[in-house]
C-alpha cells in the first residue's frame, strides 16, 4: 500500500502539490508513481522562469525502464528545481514527498488548486485502480 500524506493535494496523473506560506507550490510525484516507474536514473527539470499551462509536460523522469512525462498540476512559472536530483535522482524513489520533490512553481491561477484531489480522494482513486 503506497503512502498518501494528508497535507498534500493530488492530481489524477499522480503528482502531489504542497501549498507554501508564500503562495508558491512544491510539486513532486507520488509514492505510487515512483513505485510504478521503478528506479529513477535521470530527471530533466525546467529552467527557472519557464511557464506552463496546467497539464503541460514540464518534467521528464527517466527510470531504468523508460522515460515518462510529469505534467504541470497547475498553471504557473517555474521558480526552482530540486538541485539535489542532478546527482541523486534516486531521491525521488527514496523520499518522494520530501527530499525527492521536483519543482517549485508560482501558480498563475490559484483557483486551479481547488480542482486537485485531497488525500482521501486520491487514496480512493488508487484503491479503485488496484494500486
Amino acid at each position: 500500500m503506497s503512502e498518501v500524506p494528508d497535507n498534500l493535494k493530488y492530481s489524477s496523473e499522480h503528482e502531489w502539490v504542497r501549498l507554501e506560506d508564500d503562495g508558491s507550490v512544491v510539486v513532486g510525484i507520488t509514492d505510487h508513481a515512483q513505485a510504478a516507474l521503478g528506479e529513477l536514473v535521470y530527471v530533466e527539470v525546467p529552467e527557472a522562469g519557464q511557464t506552463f499551462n496546467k497539464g503541460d509536460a514540464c518534467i521528464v523522469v527517466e527510470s531504468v525502464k523508460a522515460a515518462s512525462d510529469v505534467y504541470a498540476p497547475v498553471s504557473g512559472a517555474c521558480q526552482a528545481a530540486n538541485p539535489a536530483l542532478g546527482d541523486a535522482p534516486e531521491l525521488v524513489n527514496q523520499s518522494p514527498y520530501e527530499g525527492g520533490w521536483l519543482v517549485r512553481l508560482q501558480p498563475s491561477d490559484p483557483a486551479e488548486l481547488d480542482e486537485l484531489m485531497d488525500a482521501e480522494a486520491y487514496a480512493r482513486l488508487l484503491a479503485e485502480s488496484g494500486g
Partner: protein
Amino acid sequence: MTQRTPLFDRQVAAGARIVDFGGWTMPLHYGSQLDEHHVVRQAAGIFDVSHMTVIDVDGADAETYLQTLLANDVARLKSPGRGLYSCMLSHSGGIVDDLIAYRRDSGEFRIVVNAATRESDLAWMDSVAGDCAVTLTERPGSIMLAVQGPEACERAAPLLPDSLRAAALGLTPFGCVEGEGWFIARTGYTGEDGWEIIVGAEAGLVLWDAAVAAGIRPCGLGARDTLRLEAGLCLYGQDMDQGTSPLVSNLAWTVAWDPDKRNFVGRQALEDERKQTDAHKLVGLILDDRGIMRPGQRVITAAGAGVVTSGGFSPTLRRSIALARIPGMAAESCQVEIRAARRVAKIVRPPFVRYGKILVDLPGGHLEI
C-alpha cells in the same frame, strides 16, 4: 497463456516483480535492478534463464548439418567440451537467431537458442535439416541457471556434484563439462566470469536454494539487460533480427569464412553484402551530455543517419550508453535525438565494461553526473 519456469514460486516469494517476456512470466527485479547490476560486477548473482531453448543435435550428420546451419564453424571446436557463439542465418543473410553450440562428450552437439524465437528456430532448423541423418531433440522442463560475477564460481563450486567440481573450476571461457545430469559451461551474458548450468528441475531447485544461501543474489531480467549492454552483447530482436546481418551487427568476427567451400546458409548473401561500400555498422555510444538514450532514437552523423538499437543508463559508467546502427564511415562523435533535443555522444567500440573494468574513455574525463 504464459509459461512459468520451475522457480516461479520461489521468485515470487523472494519479492520478484514479474513481467511477461517472450511468452514467459519472468522476474524483472527483486527490489532493485541497480543493486543487482552492481552485485554481479562486484560479487555474484544468479539468474533463472530456464526459458532459454535447449536443443540437442545428434546423428551421423550432426557436424556437417551444423556446418551448414551456422555462420560460425563447429569444426573449430577441436575437442568435446568446447562451445562457440554463432548466428544462424536466413538465405538472405539475416539473423534467424543467435546461439551457443557445444560439442559434447559424446561427440554430438547441444545448442542453446533464445526463448522468444523457439518456434521459428525449430521450424527453420527442421527445414535446413532436410534429408540429413540428424535428430533434433528439444530439452524442455530443465532448469537453466546463470551464476555470474567475480565471486560466482568460487561461491557456487561447493554446490556442484563432487565428480564435476574440479573440471568445472578448470574450464576456460566457452568450455563445458557434463555428468550426473548436469551440464556446466563457462559462459554468460554479463561480461563477467561465471557458469551457465543446465540441470533437471529437482536438482535445479536445490541448486537455486543453496546458491541463495551461499550469498549469490537473485537477479532479474532488468539487470541482465544493463549488464549485457555494458558488455556490448547484442540482444536478439532488438540489436539484430531477420533484417540485419552479422556484418552490420558487430558480429563479423563470428562468421567463419574459411574454408571457402563451406557453404553455410546465407553465405552468398553475406559475400555480396561484404562488397558494399556504404554498409552500416553497429557501434557503442556514450552520451556526453545528461539524458538517457533509448531504442529507436535517431542518430545524426557526418556520414548520414542511424538509429539507437539498445540504450539506457549504465550503472557502472553512471551515464547513458547505447548500441546504435550508423553509417560505416561515421567516426568519433554523433548526435542523438532525445525527444526534442539533439545531444552529443561519443562513438566507441564495445564492450564498455568487461570483468568489472571500464574499457572505454569517458567523454570529458571525470563524471559530474
